[in-house]
């Protein structure tokens, strides 16, 4: 069976600077996969390539065996890949509920309809309310997203990402800037919402990475230098030298 998400010799250059330098990666269905690496390794760029935000220079990306290279972000999303953003990217002047409803609409098949009354769409409302509860923002259901606390906005960011029911979920630093308790809550949420799905996440917090991930890829200077289970990655010499060994002390606080 085809991998859930597969990258084949993916390269990306901005001008003469190569940011992603031939990445090969295959992520199995149902796997929780973490991408780690020092600052500037190209982790966020990799997410932007997979999700269609930037075009690739060369290479191919396959989703469930189908080539999605060069598709627009919305087309990739409709095929079942959804992503979150490192810097919170929600609809600030809409309420929490409306944010989630917007994220649900396409998956329920309403497209650009101007002949349905959105308040009367029971399936949409039920799904959006279920999401409100799931991300723990029931008390904030009708609050404008722009005035939520940082941790609440991060939870909403995840809610908007999973709302469409995508099979492959990309989370870009979901716990960045959170306190310890907030991080614990976020990890529990991520664990719950990625149940039965394929999860790829960029994360700097090593306790989160080693606690959640089935497999880890280490990205250094735009290349994957190692992929393996947490135990394998811990024991990998090259990783220790390139990343953990040198930066193990600072990795926790790195952003």
């Amino acid at each position, binding site marked *: 069976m085809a991998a859930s998400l597969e990258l084949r010799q993916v390269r990306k250059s901005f001008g003469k600077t190569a940011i992603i330098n031939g990445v090969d990666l295959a992520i199995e269905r149902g796997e929780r996969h973490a991408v780690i690496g020092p600052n500037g390794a190209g982790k966020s760029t990799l997410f932007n390539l997979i*999700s*269609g935000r930037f075009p690739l220079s060369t290479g191919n990306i396959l989703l469930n065996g189908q080539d999605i290279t060069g598709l*627009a*972000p*919305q087309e990739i*999303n*409709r095929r079942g890949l*959804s*992503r979150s*953003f490192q810097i919170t*990217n*929600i*609809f*600030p*002047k*809409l*309420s929490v509920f*409306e944010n989630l*409803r*917007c*994220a649900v*609409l*396409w*998956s329920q098949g*309403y*497209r*650009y*309809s*101007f*002949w*349905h*009354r*959105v*308040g009367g*769409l029971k399936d949409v409302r039920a799904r959006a309310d279920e999401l409100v509860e799931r991300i723990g923002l029931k*008390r*904030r*259901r*009708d*609050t*404008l997203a722009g*005035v939520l606390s940082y941790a609440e906005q991060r939870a909403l960011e995840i809610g*908007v*990402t999973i*709302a*469409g029911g995508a099979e492959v979920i990309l989370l870009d630093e979901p716990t960045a800037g959170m306190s310890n308790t907030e991080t614990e809550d976020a990890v529990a949420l991520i664990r719950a919402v990625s149940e039965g799905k394929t999860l790829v996440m960029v994360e700097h917090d090593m306790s989160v990475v080693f606690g959640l991930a089935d497999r880890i890829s280490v990205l250094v200077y735009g290349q994957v230098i190692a992929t393996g289970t947490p135990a394998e990655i811990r024991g990998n010499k090259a990783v220790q030298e390139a990343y953990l060994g040198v930066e193990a002390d600072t990795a926790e606080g790195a952003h």
Partner: protein
Amino acid sequence: MADPVVEAVARAVRNAPASGAEPGLMHWRRAMVWAAVAAVLIAAPQVFNQGFAVSMLSQMGIAIIFALSYNMLLGQTGMLSFGHAVYFGLGAFFAAHALNAIGAGSLHWPVSLLPLVGAAAGLAFGLVFGYVTTKHSGTPFAMISLGIAEMVAACSLMFPSFFGGEGGISTDRVVGDKVMGVDFGPGVQVYYLIAAWCFVCMILMFALTQTPLGRMANAVRDNPERVKFVGYNPTRIRFLMLALAGMFAGIAGALEVINFELITAERLGTAASGTVLLMAFIGGVGHFYGPIIGAILITFLQSALSNYTQAWLLYFGLFFLVMILFAPGGIASLVTLHKPAVQTRLLGRLALPYAGAAVAGAVLLAGLIMAVEMFYHYETKREQVGAVMSLFGQQFDTTATGPWLMAVALLVVGGVLLRLAARPIGAAWTEIAAAVNRGQGN
């Protein structure tokens, strides 16, 4: 008004959990509002029954449709267009030619449904121009919309057979026999036709905000980038909204043809596009009803002020300036601002401070009007009618020092009074803010 206390209140209201009104109750309330709107539309020409008043009411109805259609772009989708009059104007020209064809007997179509011709033209050009303009957003969109407006205005001079050159296209709305005693000869019959179309368009445009497309338009306004990652194409949403806005603008244009029996190319130019922007903006683009207020107010000012003074454009400009400086959210935002005062039952505390500010404002305004009118008289009329002019029922010599000193004194005193009046207003708002916070603590 940009007072920190006021902002704190506004923030507190935004943060407060919504009352969560029951859907059934909300529908009932909404139905009541629409019934009230219908009642106002029906009663208006009975109350204001002079010829010019009915004509003004007709213009207001047209302006309401036009301004609401503009706000589908600006307020709902975040598209600043400088060329919305293009769709109004083209809809009007097609409607004018259709009306002439009806008059000539070559087209069989009821005059009451002429707005459908305007709608079709507005929609068609919305689809064509929208396809080009909505590929971009933000400033590029604004610039391209301006370019399209200039282009269409230039075309209007190049095709005199269609646009009628400087004189425009004139027409006659009274064609054929009376249908149930109605031939749209009298102004009041035209008013009721416009009112009916206005009512239908208002409901349709409001209904649109409650659809998936309308909601996603709000999302595009807030964050077009994110929209792509929930499966939607923001370009497509902008395109559909512009096409539909063009359609409603075309309806307004066709009604304009019926109302004036004349359409000139200046109605599709950039000045007309600017006026509709002002209507939406002054009324308040953040609320559905905002542009309705703006359309009514500006239509009134345009016809009423221009009767009284030649300097009306200057007052109009000053009014716009004051609104942008002190109430950038428009009149609708001022209404929203006072919700906490109503909820805490402290609106009465504002009455006296506001009355004080009104007096101060009146003094300032009197000084301003005096200075402007005397200057206008001195510059433009002195040589024909002499230096003495009458204002507020008084005679003033515009070449004497006294009246000028008086105008300056009014301005200064008004300004100082307004400063003083701000303090009790601030105190009242502090009290309201405290009450709101106490209410939230419970």
